[in-house]
């Protein structure tokens, strides 16, 4: 480590910590071991922090303690306060913090080792003092960290709805982004290799910082709000790489290892998520998916539909009370309406009447991976009733009724039928195979993909228009009346 002397004990502690990170992350990939895996990772982090505190010559504890306490309180408060359904936003914010921290550490090292030296500061540069490669990794850390920070903030704002979720497609944005990237990289290389003047070097560094902050915004702005989970996963990978870059600056292997672990696993996860939506990463990042001008089959409102039959909750209950099997298919609308408890109430009433109720969970239903699982878990729906797509799809032909609650794209038959459809190829739930399909949504507006769904026109489809929670509450009320 450049900042401190080498200590074998601390190196071993860091190694143990790195091993625990590996074991912990591996644990996170299996349901049975996930919680223990998370715990092991947290333990690894604690170990790394303690080893660091023991190791370095702390000149003043005040700021370290202040920082730990303030950050810890904010983090814990945020973690306990937010509702489960706002997880993606929260993860985005946390991720931004990580990126910011990596960039700040790199900047602080520059100030500390160069600008604040007792000797004549005009005589030394980062490169002359620390060497070329630490200078280079410093600027990489700043670059990636800054992009992560502002990119995550934009993702957060989009998910919160504080700025429009619609892709903002500036003209010439690709050129602008390329220029900014080239500028940052070029400035960074010049910073590390050729600068001999500390003032110029400082200006370059600040220039790179600003350029990457802007770049982060511009890269995420053109991406639709619903693609944010993928973006966050990618930014998560970046924040790992930023931490690894910081590790190169400090020559600390534990940072390099954990950073690389996160970098790699984030990339893999991003790919897995893209695959589940049947899209390429490039399409997610640069496709402007969900923008106004999105391709063929775009639908805005009822004018695109013919032969849609709307039913009242009373009529729906007449069908439901004779069902022997019901599959509930939840979608993003369930989260919007916060109707998870009501849907469970209805399911329980049906089950009491002898109907077999299960839930069909599409892997990308909602707006984050596992969105429906989290939502239904909050409403205490038994785990065994949640069926994955591959399990539930062959069942639909033997199902009396399907209740689609605020789902749209994930039940769109065009995905398997219409090669011209933008979502063609994405595996969907074949709800139309059931005897009756009931769809609860507020209007005929499209879902995330912005396209028409001809399921709503099918003869065996009953549309129940209204807010999911309200409609479900009415269904529950009717049911109770029957029971009395």
């Amino acid at each position, binding site marked *: 480590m450049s900042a401190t002397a080498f200590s074998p004990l601390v190196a071993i502690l860091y190694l143990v910590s790195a091993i625990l*990170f590996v074991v*912990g992350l591996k644990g*996170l990939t299996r*349901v049975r071991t*996930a*919680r223990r895996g*998370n715990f092991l990772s947290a333990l690894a982090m604690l170990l*790394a922090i303690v080893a*660091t505190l023991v190791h370095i010559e702390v*000149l003043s504890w005040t*700021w*370290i303690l*202040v*920082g730990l306490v*303030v*950050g810890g309180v*904010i*983090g*814990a408060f945020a*973690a306990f306060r937010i509702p*489960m359904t706002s*997880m993606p936003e*929260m*993860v985005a914010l*946390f991720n931004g*913090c*990580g990126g910011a*921290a*990596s960039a*700040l*550490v790199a900047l*602080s*090292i520059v100030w*500390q080792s160069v600008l604040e030296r007792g000797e004549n500061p005009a005589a030394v540069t980062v490169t002359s003092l620390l060497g070329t*490669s630490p200078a280079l990794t410093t600027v990489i850390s700043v670059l990636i960290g800054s992009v992560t920070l502002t990119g995550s903030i934009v993702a957060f704002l989009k998910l919160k709805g504080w700025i429009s979720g619609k892709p903002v497609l500036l003209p010439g944005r690709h050129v602008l982004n390329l220029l900014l990237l080239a500028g940052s990289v070029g400035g960074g290389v010049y910073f590390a290799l050729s600068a001999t003047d500390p003032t110029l070097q400082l200006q370059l560094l600040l220039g790179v910082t600003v350029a990457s902050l802007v770049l982060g915004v511009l890269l995420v702005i053109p991406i639709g709000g619903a693609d944010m*989970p993928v973006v966050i996963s990618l930014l998560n990978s970046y924040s*790992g790489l*930023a*931490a690894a870059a910081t*590790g190169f*600056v400090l*020559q600390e292997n534990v*940072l*390099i*290892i*954990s*950073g*690389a*672990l*996160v970098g*790699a*696993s984030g990339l*893999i*996860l991003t790919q*897995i998520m893209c695959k589940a939506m049947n899209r390429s990463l490039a399409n997610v990042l640069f496709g402007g998916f969900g923008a106004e001008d999105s391709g063929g089959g775009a639908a805005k409102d009822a004018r695109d539909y013919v032969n849609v039959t709307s039913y009242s909750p009373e009529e729906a209950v007449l069908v439901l009370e004779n069902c022997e099997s019901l599959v509930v298919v939840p979608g993003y609308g369930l989260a919007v309406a916060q109707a998870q408890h009501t849907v469970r109430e209805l399911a329980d009433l049906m089950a009491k009447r002898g109907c077999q109720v299960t839930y069909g969970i599409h*892997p990308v239903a909602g707006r*984050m991976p*596992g969105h429906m699982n*989290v939502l239904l878990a909050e409403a205490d729906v038994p*785990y065994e009733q949640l069926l994955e797509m591959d399990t539930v799809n062959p069942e639909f032909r033997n199902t009396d009724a399907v209740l689609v609650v605020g789902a749209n794209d994930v039940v769109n038959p065009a995905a398997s039928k219409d090669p011209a459809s933008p979502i063609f190829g994405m595996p969907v739930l074949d709800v139309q195979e059931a005897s009756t399909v009931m769809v609860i949504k507020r209007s005929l507006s499209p879902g995330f993909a912005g396209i028409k769904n001809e399921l709503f026109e099918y003869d065996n489809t009953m549309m129940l228009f209204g807010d999911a929670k309200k409609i479900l509450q009415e269904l529950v009320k009717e049911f109770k009346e029957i029971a009395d």
Partner: protein
Amino acid sequence: MTEALIIGIYVFVLAMFVGFEIITKIPPTLHTPLMSGANAVSGITIVGAIIAARTGSAEISSILGLAAIIFATINVVGGFLVTDRMLHMFNQKKKR
């Protein structure tokens, strides 16, 4: 290129391999917890933040360090707690 940099690259490449290999098939339910858990791990930069802030002086470097500690701790503490909260939910359901 210095020997230290090369060794860093060796360690980095190997750790990337480990990262690629341990995440293979993962059920969709765990996508978000894995994301937020991994995110918490990237808060390891807190080690660097502590080193940066250790002088406790009023100089710019220490102030940047303090800010780095705060941000990194939010990331670490918030990340692990939020992940645990999510996973707790799934576990509860399974026990019944």
